[in-house]
């Protein structure tokens, strides 16, 4: 079936080339049938890439190691759940996922906008197909997902154990959906400039897609942070890694755009700014993809040794040059229709929020690309670390959270100072009350030691106060107008003003998230030390005792089903203290060594935790018939007691380099032949038994962090608010619009008559 995959890619490339030509010819000549044909090329592209993706997915699920990418990133021992996700763990598979998602989202936007903005949509079609063609060209000429090996190897290398984590199934598709959706506003923005139709119509058309890009990118970022916290053994959720930053930058500019587009929709202002934000967001999304794929910067998330840098640099250069050219040559058309009425208006606050978001993006951009900049200027690569990022981003984040509380209580167009003052009383009182409570709390660290954290709590309290007041007043007004009970009025209020109240919920989520970030990073207790069974460590207010070691051994899934497999299992079970797999995390580790930890506070039992480390089959025969079973990259499986107020996070690094354990491996390598590969696991079981008999000291990493869960809860609130804001109106809203239509005619006519 590799042949079908290859034909699909070639056909997709031809369709892209045809679609670009047809769309441009159609819009230039006024022959709509060609524009329509170009639009249908995008649908065809989606169909072709769906087939191609299905071919690759089936190859993974059927262990077809004739496909190079399957042999490199999967194996028979990789659990089926992860085989399905292994498609996008490779360079070529992830490129296919990118192109496929792009084709699906492009089809959706062009289907939704059929019959509208024909000239803009035709140019957008050509640009989207251009992106599609670019990624398909990479797959045809550089990283081929359907390249094969003959004869097929009997076994694959296996999926990187670090990626054997449930959120890894969802994280890349979410992130790629976000990236690909970012190109849709870019394509329509460029289309509007090319067609010289820069009114608010194109913005209305792509608003939901910009929102979707923001939503998916946000979910992807959050899942990535969760993976980092729960899977990577360092205990953090954000490390200012280049690839992490690359996903955050378009999210920040996208957030700025979602605010400023409202100003263009309502007032016809900020046209240059909006179109620039759209172009920047799309370009940053492509740059993010470039960072992951090019290997130009070191990152744990990047595909190392990749050779796609040059094509991406060319694409980014073309995007930046064409964006600047279009904005400069169309500047006369991009003039604002109105001026800012007042500095005390929601427009002004939105502009402030835009400036802060763009400043944040600039700081992150500078820090991320600093190694490249320094190398270009000085010839030496230098990088900046988390303290550098924190120095600039923390104050900006404070201002951002504060503005997210100020914006909702100020009216559009104009707000009198008296009104603004009245609306600020409640939020300011809540913030002040929070400050007083925090000052009165005894014990280290004091207020003076953590001023930024305290300031963040107060800003968040201000947001809770202002948004809470908004909901309350809105509900009260609705209840009075419609004679509804308060809960009914609240639901009706949100349903009829989804965008506004969905946005407010997002603001609450952001404040909750930042409270979690400030608390967990400022008031964390961490300890790294070696412990033997029976020993304890003190971490913050908690005592953690290493009770006993654990060990589990997992034979090859296939051989376990055979007669020989059953015998092997019996031998493994006979080892004292060793359990037969699968490992607790079900990631396909051959050997998993861990610990049972008893956590107490003030002498009272709190929880029992069982962190472990998985040792994986490297598939490398040079490591010996036994050694290869544990020769792969070891991966820590974190044990966590998560709560609303604090998390107790533990990780273990067991020592398997003791002379006794090494001797068992060496002996196994010497005596067990490769003829029966499954038998080597017996030596691993013997090694695990020896480990259990006399466990060596293990290295532990303990962290007690307050309010980490607030980060995930805040993220969920942000996502929920985003969904409310983006959710389609449906019949109820349609009927409301009709009523408003009739009423507004009458009232507007009345108003005009008075004038």
């Amino acid at each position: 079936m590799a042949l079908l995959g290859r034909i699909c890619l070639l056909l997709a490339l031809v369709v892209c080339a045809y679609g670009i030509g047809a769309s441009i010819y159609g819009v230039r000549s006024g022959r709509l049938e060609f524009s329509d044909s170009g639009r249908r090329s995008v649908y065809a592209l989606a169909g072709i890439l769906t087939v191609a993706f299905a071919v690759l997915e089936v190859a993974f699920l059927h262990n077809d190691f004739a496909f190079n990418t399957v042999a490199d990133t999967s194996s028979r021992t990789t659990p089926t759940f992860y085989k399905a996700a292994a498609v996008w763990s490779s360079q070529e598979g992830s490129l296919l996922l990118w192109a496929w998602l792009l084709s699906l989202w492009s089809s959706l936007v062009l289907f939704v906008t059929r019959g509208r903005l024909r000239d803009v949509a035709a140019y957008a079609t050509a640009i989207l197909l251009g992106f599609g063609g670019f990624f398909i060209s990479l797959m045809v000429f550089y990283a081929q997902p359907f390249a094969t090996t003959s004869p097929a190897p009997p076994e694959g290398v296996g999926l990187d154990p670090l990626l054997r984590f449930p959120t890894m199934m969802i994280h890349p598709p979410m992130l790629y959906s976000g990236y690909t959706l970012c190109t849709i506003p870019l394509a329509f923005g460029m289309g509007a400039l090319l067609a010289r139709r820069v009114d608010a119509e194109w913005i209305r058309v792509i608003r939901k897609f910009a929102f979707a890009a923001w939503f998916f990118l946000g979910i992807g970022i959050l899942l990535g942070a969760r993976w980092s916290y729960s899977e990577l053994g360092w205990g953090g959720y954000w490390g200012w890694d280049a690839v992490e930053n690359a996903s955050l930058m378009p999210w920040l500019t996208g957030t700025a755009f979602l605010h400023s587009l409202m100003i263009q929709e309502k007032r016809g202002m900020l046209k240059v700014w909006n179109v620039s934000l759209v172009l920047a967001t799309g370009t940053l999304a492509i740059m993010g993809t470039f960072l992951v794929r090019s290997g130009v910067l070191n990152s744990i998330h990047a595909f190392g040794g990749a050779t796609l840098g040059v094509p991406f640099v060319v694409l980014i250069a073309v995007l930046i040059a064409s964006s600047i050219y279009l904005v400069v040559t169309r500047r006369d058309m991009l003039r604002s229709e109105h001026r800012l009425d007042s500095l005390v208006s929601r427009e002004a606050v939105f502009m402030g929020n835009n400036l802060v978001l763009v400043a944040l993006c600039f700081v992150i951009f500078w820090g991320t690309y600093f190694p490249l900049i320094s190398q270009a200027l000085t010839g030496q690569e230098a990088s900046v670390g988390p303290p550098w990022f924190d120095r600039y981003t923390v104050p900006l984040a404070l201002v951002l959270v504060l503005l997210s509380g100020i914006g909702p209580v100020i009216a559009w167009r104009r707000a009198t100072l008296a009104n603004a003052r009245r609306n600020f009383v409640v939020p300011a009182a809540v913030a002040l009350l929070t400050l007083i409570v925090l000052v009165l709390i005894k014990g280290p660290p004091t207020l003076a030691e953590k001023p930024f954290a305290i300031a963040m709590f107060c800003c968040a309290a201000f947001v809770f106060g202002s948004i809470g007041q908004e909901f309350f007043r809105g509900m009260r007004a609705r209840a009075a107008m419609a004679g509804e009970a308060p809960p009914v009025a609240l639901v009706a209020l949100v349903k009829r003003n989804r965008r506004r109240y969905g946005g407010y919920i997002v603001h609450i989520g952001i404040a909750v998230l930042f409270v979690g970030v400030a608390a967990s990073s400022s008031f964390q207790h961490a300890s790294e030390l070696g412990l033997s069974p029976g020993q304890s460590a003190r971490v913050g207010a908690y005592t953690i005792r290493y009770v006993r070691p654990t060990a589990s051994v997992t034979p090859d899934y296939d051989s376990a089903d055979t007669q020989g497999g059953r015998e092997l299992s019996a031998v493994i079970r006979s080892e004292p203290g060793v359990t037969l797999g699968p490992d607790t995390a079900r990631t396909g580790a051959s050997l998993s060594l861990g610990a049972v930890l008893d956590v107490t506070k003030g002498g009272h039992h709190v929880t029992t935790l069982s962190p472990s480390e998985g040792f994986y089959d490297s598939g490398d025969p040079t490591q010996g018939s036994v050694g290869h079973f544990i020769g792969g990259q070891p991966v820590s499986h974190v044990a966590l007691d998560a709560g609303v107020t604090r998390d107790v996070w533990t990780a273990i690094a067991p020592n398997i380099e003791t002379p006794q354990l090494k001797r068992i491996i060496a002996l196994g390598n010497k005596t067990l032949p490769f003829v029966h590969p499954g038998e080597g696991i017996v030596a691993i079981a013997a090694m695990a038994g020896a480990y259990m008999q006399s466990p060596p000291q293990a290295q532990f990493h303990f962290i007690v962090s307050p309010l980490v869960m607030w980060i995930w809860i805040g993220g969920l609130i942000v996502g929920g608010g985003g969904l409310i804001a983006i959710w389609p109106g449906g019949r109820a809203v349609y009927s409301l619009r009709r009523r408003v239509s009739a009423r507004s005619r009458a009232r507007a006519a009345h108003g005009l008559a008075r004038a």
Partner: protein
Amino acid sequence: MPAPRTAWRAPDGVDLLAAILAVALLGVVILVVSAPLRAARRPSGTESPAQGAEAGEDRVELEAAREAKYREIRDAELDYRTGKLSEEDFAATDGALRAEAVEILDRLGALQREAQENSEAPRAS
């Protein structure tokens, strides 16, 4: 010794199923992409597709502008009711917004009348 890798090797035997599926896919793609071109070659009514599409597009855009204006009116009303706008400010803002809404409605009405006249003209002749 690792097996030699070939990126785009010629298949040892023709993968018949893959070839049939590829041909079928090609056929579907041609059908989908060429449908508007085939439709354009068929004889149509008096109004050219471009004219009709343009008129339809204007109407859709005006309807979208109307919806946006209604939303603005609702927002201003909500701002007033939640205490963010004084009565005088609300009256001024609301009046301006409604005037803008009426202008859009007038343009939409004119477009609809024009479309109606166009559709009645051939019948009269």
